């Protein structure tokens, strides 16, 4: 096991243009499950590929287990990687796919059988060893890819959107399996995804990336509850955080915190809104509305009402909503960074 560290890591594909990855400084913890989260084009995969050694950094350093590996080829970094497509070798059986890294690194043949049985047992694919990749289902392929990655006991695991090829149902169970798998092997893991649910559910810490810059590093709770800037605030959460223009600051609050007045306890800010649309989603209702007060009139907000709140809210109706003060977040309007909390004079 080892920690991964990047120092001012930068990758510029076309000189003169903005880099795909810019000055990234990260340090994982021992055995941590770290998630790189960001929209497509945010540089998360490029960052992972640089850590893997598949992409040469333009500047900066990469350390694995305290050793500088910046210019080492992938095979000398002690890493294993699971690719989005799984990249199973199509002409080899599952058994040979799993032993491939062992053969490539000259592990004595008599040790292969035992190691494969261990890895296959861990992932429950003992029955599939004689099959070819094309005879496997998506979930089975993913497990074979994991077995191939773990068989040589890497110090670091890199996973590049390994669940994106699975259907929604399978994805949820695969997510849980991956988490359990990580708990069992305890290897430092870096996981790339654009799916915030995966990131929230699996990550010990989440690195939110945007346009090649790290926007925030923190636990799922921190990035969700205390976003560092408006990008993180609106990227995470569905629907995203409401941002209301209030003089020199932007006031943010989550849709699930914008509730009908009677549901909000303690000191709160009242917001009168006019409902413009309602989506019924079973477990909750999404209410789209416009603020109905003179100074902030016509600003859009979204509220998420739990199904347990059964009072009718009708389209076109004026409703008195409120947000508890402790749930308000403030952002500087020009820098879009987090600003200090302040007393809000509303209206």
């Amino acid at each position, binding site marked *: 096991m080892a920690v991964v560290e990047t120092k001012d890591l930068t990758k510029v594909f076309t000189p003169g243009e903005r880099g795909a990855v810019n000055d990234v400084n990260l340090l994982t913890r021992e055995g941590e499950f770290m998630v790189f989260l960001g929209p497509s084009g945010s540089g998360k995969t490029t960052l992972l*590929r640089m850590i*893997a*050694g*598949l992409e040469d950094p333009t500047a900066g350093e990469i350390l694995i287990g305290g050793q500088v590996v910046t210019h080492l*080829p*992938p*095979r000398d970094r002690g*890493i*294993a*990687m699971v*690719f*989005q*497509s*799984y*990249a*199973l*070798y*199509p*002409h080899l059986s599952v058994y040979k796919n799993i032993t*491939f*890294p062992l053969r*490539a*690194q000259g592990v004595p043949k008599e040790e292969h059988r035992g190691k494969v049985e261990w890895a296959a047992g861990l992932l429950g694919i003992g029955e599939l060893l004689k099959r070819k*990749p*094309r005879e496997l289902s998506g979930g089975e392929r993913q497990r074979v890819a994991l077995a*191939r990655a773990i068989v*040589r006991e890497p110090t670091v695991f890199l996973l590049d959107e390994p669940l994106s*090829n699975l259907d929604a149902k399978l994805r949820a169970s695969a997510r849980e399996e991956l988490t359990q798998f990580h708990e069992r092997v305890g290897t430092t893991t870096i996981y790339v995804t654009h799916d915030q649910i995966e990131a929230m559910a699996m990550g010990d810490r989440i690195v939110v990336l945007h346009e090649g810059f790290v926007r925030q590093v923190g636990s799922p709770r921190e990035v969700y509850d205390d976003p560092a800037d408006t990008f993180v605030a609106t990227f995470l959460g569905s629907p995203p955080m409401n941002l209301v223009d209030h003089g020199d600051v932007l006031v943010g609050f989550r849709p699930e915190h914008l509730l009908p007045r009677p549901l909000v306890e303690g000191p709160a800010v009242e917001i009168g809104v006019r409902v413009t649309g309602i989506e019924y989603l079973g477990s909750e209702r999404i209410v789209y509305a416009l603020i109905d007060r003179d100074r902030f009139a016509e600003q859009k907000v979204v509220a998420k009402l739990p199904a347990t709140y059964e009072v009718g809210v009708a389209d076109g109706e004026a409703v008195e909503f409120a947000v508890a003060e402790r749930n308000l977040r403030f952002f500087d309007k020009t820098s879009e960074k987090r600003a200090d909390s302040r007393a809000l004079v509303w209206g």
Partner: protein
Amino acid sequence: MIGLKGARRRRLPFQIYRWTALSVFSVLLAFPFVWMAITSFKQTSDLYNLNNNPFLFNERPTLEHLKLLFEETLFPRWFLNTAFAGAMVVLITLLLAVPAAYALARLTGRWGERLGIAIFLTYLIPPTLLFIPMSRVVSELGLQDSLWSIIVVYPTFTVPFSIWLLMAFFKSIPRELEDAAMVDGLTRFQAFVKLVIPISFSGILTVVIFTFTLVTQEFVYALTFISSASNQTIGVGVPIYLVRGDVYYWGSLMAACLIASLPIAVFYNLFLDRFIAGFTVGAVK
């Protein structure tokens, strides 16, 4: 799903359709071989009698044509020459085309594609145009009347075509596979040898067969560059020595064709499964 498919396959109309299609194709493809075989063993008088049923032996079968082919021409020699030249040309073609195609498919980005097209365009120049420059090259190298002249010349058209063909194969292999192999402990070159080549096996096989067939049947260059009978290949030797004026030695001609084409047919059938698998393999998905 599988049960349903199986049931449909067992249904009668499907069976009739399948067997009809199979029979038509089998007859169509086997006919030239059967025809060559029958003709090789027929007496000449039987061959030329229009009242005879051409599909049957109306007179006693004979080994005369084979005897003529093997004893009175240099056919065994031509056969060996063709095999040797074929093997050499295949070797040269693979040595040049495989790395070139890989480099063009993978490493040079946008230019790779343009260069690939440019290389393919050279294949469109008719060989008859290149004749005179090629003969200069052959004489400069001092290879006139030697089997080596064609071994040097044939790759000029087998290599571009093979590069173009293999490029398509290499491009269809996802880069992630090579990335995976490199993470798993190989160098890029090892990944190429241990992964890319086995996966493109059917493409490489196609190149081998294309090249070998070309050596067997090419006429113009072989005829001009080689004049001694003992240095010729089947493609030139057979028509020159078995067609004398207006006399066609049909029996021997057919026997020669049959013997020349059988190895290629057998070779092809040997790897038929690999060909089909190669074209349908689901590499990643």
